[in-house]
C-alpha cells in the first residue's frame, strides 16, 4: 500500500493545476471573456484530457480513474469553465459498449440527475438533461435500452437551435434540457451489451470524478477565502485574526482534507476493485465530499460577509459548481440511501 502519487501522477497534478489556474476565470467578469473560454477549451482538448477514458485500442481506457480524477480536481479548484466529466463519462460508457465515441456526445440523465436515462420507447417520455457537454451545443446524448441480458446504447439526437437552451445554474458547466418527445435511435454496431458490472464501474467513475471536482472546489474556494480573511479589516484588524472566523476556516480545511482522502481512494477503486466494491467506494466518497463541499462553500460566503452575497464575488461560482457536482450522480442523501440498501439490507421504498 502506497497512496502517494507516482512521479507521473504528481507531474499531471502540477500541470493540470497550472493550466486551470492560468486559463480559468480569476473573476466573475472573466466568465464572459469568450477568448479565454475558447483558449481553455482548446488547451484541455489539446492535452488529450477529454479522451482519458476512451478505448486505448485493447478495450482498456487511455488512462486510469486516478489520472482522470487528478484533472477533475484541478479543474474544480479553478472553477474552470470547460467540459470534462461529461465527455469522459460518455467516452467510458462508449468504450464499455464497444462503440466509437463521437465528439459532442454526453450521457443523458433524467431528473434528479442521479442515474443515466433508461429508454423504452421511440421518443423520450420525460425531459432529460445533457450535463457538461463540450462547447455551446450538444449534438446527441446517450441513454440505455434494457434487454434481457444487458443494455444497449441509445442515441438521442438533439435538434438544431437547441444551443439556446437553459444553461443550468452552474456558471461554469452546461446543463442542456432535452425536451420530452425527442426521437431515440438504437446505436448501430454496438459490440457488447452493457452489463450490470459495466454500469457499476461506470457509476464508480462518475462518483469519483464528481467527488474529485468537489475536493478541488473546496480547495479553491478556501484559498480565495483565507486570503480574503487575512486582508479584510474590521475593528482595525484583519477579520481572519478573530477566533470565530479562524475556527470556521479551520473546520472547512479539515473537511477538505478528509474529502481528499476518500476521493483519492474512490478514483483508484474505479480500475482496481471489483465493480461493486468500486461502486461502494464511490458512494462513500461522494457522501463525504458532497456534504463537506456544501459546508465549505457556505463558510466561504459567510467569511466574505456582505461582499460574499454579491454576484461579483467569485465564491458563489464555487458554490454553484459544487451544487451541480453534488447533485450529478447523487448527493449525500442519495449515497446514504444507496449504502443502506447495499450494507443494511434495507429494501427500496421502505420509508
Amino acid at each position, binding site marked *: *500500500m*502506497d*497512496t*502517494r*502519487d*507516482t512521479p507521473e*501522477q504528481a507531474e499531471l497534478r502540477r500541470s493540470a493545476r497550472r493550466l486551470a489556474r492560468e486559463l480559468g476565470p480569476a473573476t466573475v467578469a472573466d466568465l464572459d471573456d469568450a477568448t479565454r473560454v475558447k483558449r481553455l477549451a482548446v488547451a484541455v482538448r489539446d492535452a488529450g484530457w477529454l479522451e482519458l477514458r476512451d478505448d486505448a485500442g485493447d478495450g482498456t481506457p487511455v488512462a486510469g480513474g*486516478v489520472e482522470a480524477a487528478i484533472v477533475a480536481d484541478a479543474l474544480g479548484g479553478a472553477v474552470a469553465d470547460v467540459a470534462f466529466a461529461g465527455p469522459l463519462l460518455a467516452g467510458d460508457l462508449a468504450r464499455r459498449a464497444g462503440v466509437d465515441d463521437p465528439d459532442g456526445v454526453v450521457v443523458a440523465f433524467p431528473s434528479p440527475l442521479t442515474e443515466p436515462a433508461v429508454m423504452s420507447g421511440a421518443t423520450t417520455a420525460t425531459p432529460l438533461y445533457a450535463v457538461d457537454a463540450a462547447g455551446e451545443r450538444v449534438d446527441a446524448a446517450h441513454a440505455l435500452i434494457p434487454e434481457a441480458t444487458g443494455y444497449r446504447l441509445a442515441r438521442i439526437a438533439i435538434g438544431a437551435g437547441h444551443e439556446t437552451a437553459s444553461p443550468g445554474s452552474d456558471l461554469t458547466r452546461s446543463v442542456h434540457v432535452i425536451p420530452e418527445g425527442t426521437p431515440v435511435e438504437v446505436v448501430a454496431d454496438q459490440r457488447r451489451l452493457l452489463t450490470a458490472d459495466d454500469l457499476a464501474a461506470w457509476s464508480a467513475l462518475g462518483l469519483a470524478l464528481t467527488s474529485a471536482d468537489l475536493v478541488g472546489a473546496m480547495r479553491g474556494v478556501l484559498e480565495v477565502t*483565507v486570503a480574503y*480573511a*487575512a486582508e479584510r479589516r474590521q475593528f482595525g*484588524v*484583519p477579520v*481572519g*485574526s*478573530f*477566533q470565530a*472566523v*479562524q*475556527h470556521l*476556516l*479551520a*473546520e472547512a*480545511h*479539515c473537511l477538505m*482534507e*478528509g474529502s*481528499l*482522502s*476518500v476521493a*483519492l*481512494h474512490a478514483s*483508484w*477503486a474505479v480500475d*482496481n476493485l471489483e465493480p461493486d466494491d468500486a461502486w461502494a467506494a464511490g458512494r*462513500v466518497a461522494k*457522501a*463525504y465530499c458532497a456534504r463537506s463541499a456544501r459546508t465549505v462553500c457556505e463558510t466561504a460566503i459567510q467569511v466574505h460577509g456582505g461582499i460574499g452575497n454579491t454576484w461579483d464575488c467569485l465564491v458563489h461560482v464555487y458554490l454553484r459548481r459544487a451544487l451541480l457536482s453534488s447533485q450529478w450522480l447523487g448527493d449525500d*442523501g442519495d*449515497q*446514504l*440511501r444507496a*449504502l*443502506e440498501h447495499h*450494507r*443494511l*439490507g*434495507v*429494501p427500496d421504498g*421502505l*420509508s
Partner: protein
Amino acid sequence: MDFRDSQAEAEFRASLRAWLAENNPSLPTSSTDDEYWARQAEWHTSLYDAGFFGLSWPARYGGHDLPPVFDVILDEELAAVGAPPRPSLGYLVQGITTHGNEVIKDRFLPGLINGRARWCQGFSEPDAGSDLASLRTAATRDGDDYVIDGHKVWTSYSDLADWCFLLARTDPGVPRHKGLSAFAVPMDQAGIQQRPLRMINGITSEFGQVLFDSARVPAENMIGEPGEGWRVAMTIVSHEREPGELGYVARYAKTVKALEASVRAHPDACRSDQRDAVAWAHVQAEMLRLHVCRRLSERLDGVDHGPGGSIDKLLMTWVEQSVGTAALNLSGAGAVTDADDVALKIYLYSRAQSVMGGTSQIQKNIIAARILGLPTA
C-alpha cells in the same frame, strides 16, 4: 497510487488473520466497560508476543522495522473480527525516541512496546488544561534526584501504570515554556497517590488523578535536557493527535459493524433517520481509515506532519462523535431506560474525544495559525 497490499503486506495480513481467528479475546467494546481496561494489558502482551505490535518501531527496541502502513492492516483486521484496538501508546514511543538519550531509549522503550511496563502520561493539572505551559507541578533538584510535588489530573491508565511520563517545572525563574522538563517517574513509591476518576459513562478504570508529595525520581530518568520539556510535550501531543498512532480506526469500525448488525436484524423497526445516522457513521469511519492510509503513506517520504496532526485529530473527533451519535440515535428509548445501555456509554465516552489530547478549539487555533497562516489577534 496503490491501495492494494504488496506481497509482504498480503502475507502479513494472512498470518495476522489466522492468528486472530484463534486469539481474539472478545472483550467488550472498549471505552464502555471496566472489563476492557482490566484486560487491556493482557491483550497488549498477547498481541506483542505474537509479533503483531510495534510494527513500525525499531527492532532494536522490540519493534519490527516495518513501514508505517502495516499499522493500517493491523487496524483493518482487528476491526474485521471485532477484536480490541491496538494499545494506544505510539505517542509515548515517539516522545522517547525523539528526545531520549541512548540510555533512556534502551532502558524504557522495550518494556513500553512489549507491554511489560505500563505507562501513563502526567501532563494536565487542575489549573493547566488547554494552557498546559502554566503547569505548576515542581521538580526540585536534590542530590542525584529530583523531588516532585504537584497534582496531575485526567490521567489515563494511572491506576495500572508502572511509570509516569511526567512534565514538571524544573526552573521557575525562566519564561514558562523554558522551565519545563520531562521525566520517567516510577509510580510505585510512597510519595505518589493515585485516585480514580469516574467518567461520565460510569467507567472508573481508565481515568485518574495522581498526587505527588515529595515523590522522587533519579535525575538520570530525565527525558531530554533540562528545560526541553515543552518540546518533548509538543512532540507527544502532535502524535497523540494522529489516528495512525492511536489505532482508533479499529474501534470505530468495530462499533459501526455492531450498529449495522442491529439494523439488519430489525430493518423495519428503524426510522430512516436512524438508518441514515448509521450509514453516515460508516462513511465517517471509512474516511478515517483512508485518511490514515494516506497519512502513513506520506511518512514514506519522511514527512513529519507537525501541525497536520491537528487536522487528523479534528477529523477523528468528528468520526468518533458521529459514531457515538448514531449509537444513541439507534438505541432510542434504551439509552434513557437502561443506565447500563452500551450505546449510551459509547455516546457519552465520545464526548471526551473533542477534549482529550487538546480540545477541538485548540486544534482549530493551531490549524488557523500554522497551516492557514491567518494573522494572530
